[in-house]
Protein backbone atom coordinates (compact mmCIF):
# COMPACT_ATOMS: atom_id res chain seq x y z
CA UNK A 1 0.00 0.00 0.00
CA UNK A 2 2.96 2.32 0.48
CA UNK A 3 5.27 4.01 -1.97
CA UNK A 4 8.04 1.46 -1.80
CA UNK A 5 6.33 -1.32 -3.67
CA UNK A 6 4.35 1.00 -5.92
CA UNK A 7 7.22 2.92 -7.53
CA UNK A 8 10.68 1.43 -8.07
CA UNK A 9 13.58 3.45 -6.64
CA UNK A 10 15.41 4.17 -9.93
CA UNK A 11 12.37 6.04 -11.21
CA UNK A 12 12.49 8.44 -8.27
CA UNK A 13 16.23 8.88 -8.66
CA UNK A 14 15.76 9.53 -12.37
CA UNK A 15 13.25 12.28 -11.65
CA UNK A 16 15.64 13.83 -9.11
CA UNK A 17 18.49 13.61 -11.61
CA UNK A 18 16.33 15.24 -14.26
CA UNK A 19 15.50 18.07 -11.92
CA UNK A 20 19.19 18.40 -11.08
CA UNK A 21 20.21 18.67 -14.70
CA UNK A 22 17.50 21.21 -15.47
CA UNK A 23 18.78 23.24 -12.51
CA UNK A 24 22.33 22.91 -13.77
CA UNK A 25 21.33 24.08 -17.23
CA UNK A 26 19.49 27.00 -15.66
CA UNK A 27 22.44 27.99 -13.52
CA UNK A 28 24.84 27.79 -16.47
CA UNK A 29 22.78 29.46 -19.18
CA UNK A 30 21.06 32.36 -17.41
CA UNK A 31 22.59 35.85 -17.66
CA UNK A 32 20.51 37.27 -14.82
CA UNK A 33 22.17 36.46 -11.49
CA UNK A 34 18.77 35.91 -9.85
CA UNK A 35 18.14 33.33 -12.60
CA UNK A 36 21.36 31.58 -11.64
CA UNK A 37 20.20 31.50 -8.02
CA UNK A 38 16.92 29.94 -9.09
CA UNK A 39 18.88 27.24 -10.91
CA UNK A 40 20.95 26.54 -7.79
CA UNK A 41 17.77 26.27 -5.74
CA UNK A 42 16.45 23.67 -8.16
CA UNK A 43 19.66 21.66 -7.88
CA UNK A 44 19.48 21.72 -4.07
CA UNK A 45 15.89 20.57 -4.25
CA UNK A 46 16.85 17.68 -6.48
CA UNK A 47 19.51 16.61 -3.99
CA UNK A 48 16.96 16.70 -1.21
CA UNK A 49 14.62 14.52 -3.25
CA UNK A 50 17.38 11.99 -3.66
CA UNK A 51 18.12 11.92 0.05
CA UNK A 52 14.52 11.34 1.03
CA UNK A 53 14.19 8.64 -1.65
CA UNK A 54 17.26 6.84 -0.29
CA UNK A 55 15.96 7.16 3.28
CA UNK A 56 12.49 5.88 2.36
CA UNK A 57 13.63 2.96 0.18
CA UNK A 58 16.79 1.77 1.85
CA UNK A 59 16.51 2.27 5.62
CA UNK A 60 13.31 3.96 6.69
CA UNK A 61 13.95 3.31 10.39
CA UNK A 62 17.24 5.24 10.42
CA UNK A 63 16.61 8.96 10.70
CA UNK A 64 19.91 10.11 9.11
CA UNK A 65 18.33 10.75 5.69
CA UNK A 66 15.71 13.19 6.98
CA UNK A 67 18.14 14.98 9.29
CA UNK A 68 20.56 15.49 6.45
CA UNK A 69 17.77 16.82 4.22
CA UNK A 70 16.92 19.34 6.95
CA UNK A 71 20.53 20.49 7.04
CA UNK A 72 20.50 20.99 3.29
CA UNK A 73 17.33 23.07 3.57
CA UNK A 74 18.94 25.34 6.19
CA UNK A 75 22.08 25.74 4.10
CA UNK A 76 19.98 26.49 1.03
CA UNK A 77 18.09 29.18 2.96
CA UNK A 78 21.30 30.76 4.26
CA UNK A 79 22.86 30.63 0.80
CA UNK A 80 19.77 32.23 -0.81
CA UNK A 81 19.80 35.04 1.75
CA UNK A 82 23.47 35.88 1.30
CA UNK A 83 23.28 35.43 -2.48
CA UNK A 84 20.41 37.86 -2.84
CA UNK A 85 22.08 40.35 -0.51
CA UNK A 86 25.09 40.27 -2.76
CA UNK A 87 22.96 40.71 -5.85
CA UNK A 88 21.36 43.80 -4.33
CA UNK A 89 24.76 45.17 -3.31
CA UNK A 90 26.08 44.62 -6.86
CA UNK A 91 22.98 46.20 -8.31
CA UNK A 92 23.40 49.24 -6.09
CA UNK A 93 26.95 49.88 -7.27
CA UNK A 94 26.92 48.62 -10.85
CA UNK A 95 23.22 49.24 -11.67
CA UNK A 96 23.10 45.90 -13.45
CA UNK A 97 22.21 42.37 -12.51
CA UNK A 98 23.54 40.52 -15.52
CA UNK A 99 26.35 38.20 -14.59
CA UNK A 100 28.44 38.86 -17.69
CA UNK A 101 28.51 42.62 -17.07
CA UNK A 102 29.96 42.31 -13.59
CA UNK A 103 32.86 40.02 -14.34
CA UNK A 104 35.53 42.70 -14.18
CA UNK A 105 37.40 42.77 -10.84
CA UNK A 106 38.73 46.34 -11.03
CA UNK A 107 37.02 49.07 -8.91
Amino acid at each position, binding site marked *: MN*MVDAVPLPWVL*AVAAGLFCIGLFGALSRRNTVGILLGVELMLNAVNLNLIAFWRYLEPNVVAGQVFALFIITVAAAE*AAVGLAMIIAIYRTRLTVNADEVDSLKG
Partner: protein
Amino acid sequence: MNILIMVIFVVLAAFTLAAGVMVVTVKNIIHAALWLIASFFSVAAMYLLMEAEFIAIVQVLVYVGAISILVLFAIMLTRHVTGEGVRQLYKRWWIALIVAAALFGVLIVPTVFNYEWAVQPSGAQISIASTVEIGTAFMREYLLPFEVASVLLLVALIGAIVIAFEERSTRRRVLTLAEEVEQRRQRNESLRLAPTTHASETSE
Protein backbone atom coordinates in the same frame (compact mmCIF):
# COMPACT_ATOMS: atom_id res chain seq x y z
CA MET B 1 -3.89 0.80 -4.56
CA ASN B 2 -0.35 0.71 -5.94
CA ILE B 3 -1.53 1.83 -9.35
CA LEU B 4 -3.10 4.88 -7.66
CA ILE B 5 0.19 5.79 -6.01
CA MET B 6 2.07 5.16 -9.28
CA VAL B 7 -0.32 7.46 -11.15
CA ILE B 8 0.04 10.16 -8.53
CA PHE B 9 3.82 9.85 -8.59
CA VAL B 10 3.98 10.11 -12.39
CA VAL B 11 1.74 13.17 -12.40
CA LEU B 12 3.80 14.87 -9.72
CA ALA B 13 7.07 14.00 -11.42
CA ALA B 14 5.83 15.34 -14.75
CA PHE B 15 4.65 18.56 -13.11
CA THR B 16 7.95 19.05 -11.24
CA LEU B 17 10.03 18.57 -14.37
CA ALA B 18 7.74 20.80 -16.43
CA ALA B 19 7.96 23.52 -13.74
CA GLY B 20 11.73 23.10 -13.69
CA VAL B 21 11.96 23.52 -17.45
CA MET B 22 9.76 26.59 -17.26
CA VAL B 23 11.93 28.11 -14.54
CA VAL B 24 14.91 27.81 -16.79
CA THR B 25 13.48 28.81 -20.11
CA VAL B 26 10.76 31.44 -19.51
CA LYS B 27 11.81 34.99 -20.46
CA ASN B 28 10.29 37.05 -17.67
CA ILE B 29 12.27 36.54 -14.46
CA ILE B 30 9.15 37.00 -12.29
CA HIS B 31 7.44 34.14 -14.08
CA ALA B 32 10.55 32.07 -13.55
CA ALA B 33 10.31 32.70 -9.79
CA LEU B 34 6.63 31.75 -9.77
CA TRP B 35 7.33 28.54 -11.64
CA LEU B 36 10.05 27.83 -9.08
CA ILE B 37 7.46 28.10 -6.33
CA ALA B 38 5.26 25.65 -8.27
CA SER B 39 8.12 23.18 -8.47
CA PHE B 40 8.78 23.56 -4.72
CA PHE B 41 5.15 22.65 -4.10
CA SER B 42 5.25 19.51 -6.22
CA VAL B 43 8.51 18.41 -4.59
CA ALA B 44 6.84 18.84 -1.19
CA ALA B 45 3.96 16.72 -2.48
CA MET B 46 6.42 14.01 -3.46
CA TYR B 47 7.90 14.04 0.04
CA LEU B 48 4.39 13.51 1.40
CA LEU B 49 3.99 10.62 -0.98
CA MET B 50 7.10 9.13 0.57
CA GLU B 51 5.61 9.69 4.05
CA ALA B 52 8.36 12.17 5.00
CA GLU B 53 5.72 14.37 6.63
CA PHE B 54 7.98 16.67 8.61
CA ILE B 55 10.32 17.34 5.70
CA ALA B 56 7.42 18.15 3.39
CA ILE B 57 6.01 20.74 5.77
CA VAL B 58 9.44 22.23 6.48
CA GLN B 59 10.03 22.40 2.72
CA VAL B 60 6.74 24.33 2.31
CA LEU B 61 7.55 26.55 5.28
CA VAL B 62 11.14 27.35 4.33
CA TYR B 63 11.13 27.32 0.56
CA VAL B 64 7.67 28.50 -0.37
CA GLY B 65 7.14 30.68 2.68
CA ALA B 66 10.49 32.39 3.01
CA ILE B 67 12.92 31.89 0.14
CA SER B 68 10.42 32.56 -2.61
CA ILE B 69 9.40 35.85 -0.98
CA LEU B 70 13.08 36.69 -0.60
CA VAL B 71 13.61 36.00 -4.31
CA LEU B 72 10.54 38.03 -5.28
CA PHE B 73 11.71 40.94 -3.12
CA ALA B 74 15.15 40.81 -4.69
CA ILE B 75 13.65 40.78 -8.18
CA MET B 76 11.36 43.71 -7.29
CA LEU B 77 14.24 45.77 -5.95
CA THR B 78 16.42 45.18 -8.99
CA ARG B 79 13.79 44.90 -11.62
CA HIS B 80 13.71 48.13 -13.53
CA VAL B 81 17.15 47.50 -14.98
CA THR B 82 16.54 44.01 -16.37
CA GLY B 83 13.97 44.93 -18.96
CA GLU B 84 12.42 42.21 -21.08
CA GLY B 85 14.44 43.37 -24.05
CA VAL B 86 17.72 42.17 -22.58
CA ARG B 87 18.68 38.71 -23.84
CA GLN B 88 18.10 36.25 -21.04
CA LEU B 89 20.48 33.49 -22.06
CA TYR B 90 24.15 33.52 -22.95
CA LYS B 91 25.01 33.41 -26.64
CA ARG B 92 26.45 29.94 -26.34
CA TRP B 93 23.71 28.50 -24.15
CA TRP B 94 23.46 25.30 -26.17
CA ILE B 95 26.80 24.15 -24.80
CA ALA B 96 25.29 24.17 -21.30
CA LEU B 97 22.36 22.21 -22.70
CA ILE B 98 24.62 19.56 -24.11
CA VAL B 99 26.58 19.30 -20.88
CA ALA B 100 23.43 18.90 -18.79
CA ALA B 101 21.87 16.42 -21.19
CA ALA B 102 25.06 14.42 -21.35
CA LEU B 103 25.37 14.37 -17.58
CA PHE B 104 21.78 13.14 -17.33
CA GLY B 105 21.64 10.66 -20.23
CA VAL B 106 25.09 9.19 -20.21
CA LEU B 107 26.22 9.34 -16.63
CA ILE B 108 23.32 9.21 -14.12
CA VAL B 109 20.48 7.23 -15.67
CA PRO B 110 22.49 4.11 -16.60
CA THR B 111 24.17 3.94 -13.19
CA VAL B 112 20.87 4.43 -11.43
CA PHE B 113 19.03 1.80 -13.39
CA ASN B 114 21.78 -0.82 -13.53
CA TYR B 115 22.79 -0.75 -9.88
CA GLU B 116 20.36 -2.93 -7.95
CA TRP B 117 19.59 -1.18 -4.82
CA ALA B 118 19.20 -3.08 -1.54
CA VAL B 119 15.59 -2.01 -1.33
CA GLN B 120 14.11 -3.38 1.87
CA PRO B 121 11.69 -6.27 1.19
CA SER B 122 8.22 -5.16 0.29
CA GLY B 123 5.46 -5.70 2.82
CA ALA B 124 7.91 -5.69 5.76
CA GLN B 125 6.36 -3.62 8.52
CA ILE B 126 9.33 -1.41 9.47
CA SER B 127 8.58 1.55 11.67
CA ILE B 128 9.20 4.78 9.74
CA ALA B 129 11.24 7.43 11.48
CA SER B 130 8.70 10.06 12.55
CA THR B 131 9.09 13.59 13.79
CA VAL B 132 9.86 12.53 17.37
CA GLU B 133 12.89 10.53 16.27
CA ILE B 134 14.13 13.47 14.17
CA GLY B 135 13.87 15.71 17.20
CA THR B 136 15.71 13.35 19.50
CA ALA B 137 18.30 12.62 16.76
CA PHE B 138 19.02 16.35 16.57
CA MET B 139 19.62 16.42 20.28
CA ARG B 140 21.70 13.27 20.42
CA GLU B 141 23.75 12.02 17.48
CA TYR B 142 23.54 15.20 15.42
CA LEU B 143 23.90 17.81 18.17
CA LEU B 144 27.15 19.23 16.77
CA PRO B 145 25.90 19.66 13.15
CA PHE B 146 22.73 21.21 14.64
CA GLU B 147 24.79 23.84 16.50
CA VAL B 148 27.01 24.44 13.46
CA ALA B 149 23.90 24.94 11.32
CA SER B 150 22.52 27.48 13.78
CA VAL B 151 25.85 29.37 13.78
CA LEU B 152 25.85 29.26 9.98
CA LEU B 153 22.33 30.77 9.92
CA LEU B 154 23.40 33.51 12.33
CA VAL B 155 26.41 34.36 10.18
CA ALA B 156 24.31 34.36 7.02
CA LEU B 157 21.75 36.63 8.74
CA ILE B 158 24.34 39.22 9.81
CA GLY B 159 26.22 38.95 6.52
CA ALA B 160 23.12 39.59 4.45
CA ILE B 161 22.27 42.67 6.49
CA VAL B 162 25.79 44.07 6.38
CA ILE B 163 26.09 43.58 2.62
CA ALA B 164 22.71 44.92 1.62
CA PHE B 165 22.35 47.71 4.15
CA GLU B 166 23.42 51.20 3.24
CA GLU B 167 24.66 53.37 6.10
CA ARG B 168 22.06 55.75 7.36
CA SER B 169 24.39 58.79 7.17
CA THR B 170 24.89 58.53 3.42
CA ARG B 171 21.13 58.57 2.96
CA ARG B 172 20.26 62.23 2.51
CA ARG B 173 17.87 62.91 5.39
CA VAL B 174 15.39 65.72 5.01
CA LEU B 175 15.20 67.89 8.11
CA THR B 176 11.76 68.46 9.60
CA LEU B 177 10.66 72.01 10.36
CA ALA B 178 11.22 71.68 14.11
CA GLU B 179 14.80 70.47 13.60
CA GLU B 180 15.54 73.29 11.17
CA VAL B 181 14.27 75.89 13.61
CA GLU B 182 16.35 74.27 16.35
CA GLN B 183 19.51 74.35 14.20
CA ARG B 184 18.91 77.98 13.21
CA ARG B 185 18.43 78.90 16.88
CA GLN B 186 21.63 77.14 17.89
CA ARG B 187 23.56 78.77 15.04
CA ASN B 188 22.27 82.21 16.03
CA GLU B 189 23.24 81.49 19.63
CA SER B 190 26.75 80.40 18.61
CA LEU B 191 27.10 83.52 16.44
CA ARG B 192 25.93 85.70 19.32
CA LEU B 193 28.31 84.02 21.80
CA ALA B 194 31.35 84.30 19.52
CA PRO B 195 30.73 87.36 17.34
CA THR B 196 34.46 88.17 17.10
CA THR B 197 35.65 84.96 15.42
CA HIS B 198 34.59 84.79 11.79
CA ALA B 199 31.91 82.03 11.93
CA SER B 200 32.03 80.36 8.56
CA GLU B 201 28.50 80.03 7.34
CA THR B 202 27.93 76.27 7.09
CA SER B 203 26.24 75.59 3.82
CA GLU B 204 22.74 74.55 4.70
